[in-house]
């Protein structure tokens, strides 16, 4: 998925594969996960956002590949 960021690296617009992008209204919690460093390291930055219209989504950036994903429960 495509995410536009502000100067602090926080998501401002979230574009899914289908449909137009949605503006981020509120940024919630932000956290980082470093795991499995002993084999294939996983480094992620999670951002909880509320999109326009009220949808709550947890996004994460794969810090190694710089790709953004939606965390599905």
């Amino acid at each position, binding site marked *: 998925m495509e995410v536009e960021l502000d100067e602090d690296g926080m998501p401002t617009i979230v574009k899914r594969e289908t449909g137009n992008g949605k503006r981020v209204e509120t940024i919630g919690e932000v956290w980082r*996960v470093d*795991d499995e460093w002993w084999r294939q390291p*996983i480094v*992620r930055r999670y951002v909880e956002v509320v999109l326009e219209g009220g949808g709550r989504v947890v996004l994460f950036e794969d810090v190694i590949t710089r790709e953004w994903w939606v*965390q599905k*429960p």
Partner: protein
Amino acid sequence: MTRTPRLTSDGAACCWIPLFALRCETARRPELAALPVALVGSDDTRRVWQVSPLARHAGVKSGMTVSQAIGLCPALKLCEPDPVHYDAQFSRLLAALGQVSPVIEPAELGRAYVGTDGLEGLYGAPEKIVEAIKCGMRNAECGIESESPLAHSAFNIPHSAFRVGWGIGKFVSWVAASRATPGGAVIVRSGEEGRFLAAQPLAVLPLDPDTYRRLRQLDVRTLGALAALPEEAVVSQFGRAGRRLWRLAAGRVAEPVVGRVAPEPIVAALTFFSPVCERDLLVHAIDKLIDRALGDPRRSGWRVQVVRVRAELEHAASWLAEATLKEPSADRERIAAPLKTQLERSPPAGAVERLEVEFTAFAAGATELQLFARDAQAAARAGRRRALRTAAQEIKLRLKRSLLYHVIEVQPWSRLPERRYALIDYEP
């Protein structure tokens, strides 16, 4: 008062199929044979229950958590257990053994004792009897017709999986089976028990881990070493359980195989006040009679294999319908279904004066097998599973492939949400 006759036999042959449930799965889904496979537990789906040799080679062990198992063997194919299917397969095995001897005692899933007293007259020496048992199994495996009266069909597990142990008493025969090579047999002749048992490792005894550990600390590693200790010394250390262990190790216990006599046919009958020809009324009467027959105390512990309905018609005519259930059942709907079909296809030619339902053949019930569907909760679970299986088959039929998965908890503690759960193919 009538007394139920007891079928017992001091001579025993233990038939053992290790990993029975897993073998049932690979027999049903041959594509699993080449994969590392594990069955998850039926009570605790977070733990692995039975493990295929390929998975064991990768370090997976029974009792491990699913996450540990996947960590050790990422290609591990996890299967959900299907206790009802294993029950049915084990019933078939017991039925095949029942062709060899009338004294059959199921011990656990995949392990049963065959009473061998008196079989010499039919088959000859112990080797011949063991061969007869294996022959029945082999025919069962291939589903072939044979000249042997022991031929059975549809028990689709390779004969190399069967191990047979022969001896006096259940314990000796079990130890002998546990020593047999795959597909082979070990015969312990009368009088040789002490020498045979003395060389066996402690693990063949029914020990709890603590007793096992304590005996190892005492440097007792074989049954011979245990039997060499004074009986009273063992009793003073381990109590009553110790006495039993010592006696088993010394070959002083020879528990007979105890079979059960299959019940006589159970009949429930109804005489109508006036002759009946409405089909709905007959169907209702059949349901009621099946209920009544199922409620007979003699049926307890047995599932119905063959059911027959007889009707006496006006003018001394009669009507008969008989059904052999593929899966023995104690469920009214399942028993009634084939009878109702026959009633639809070829109804009685006249009005019915008297209707009679008769259960003529039985298969050991789930309670008898000491398996899973022992209590009401497990039975309800089995019912739900059956309904789910039917629905899944319907979906597969429509979509040409199965799209159903079972969610299991794998690493609930993981900080990566997608690692917390895994999907297992749901194959009905």
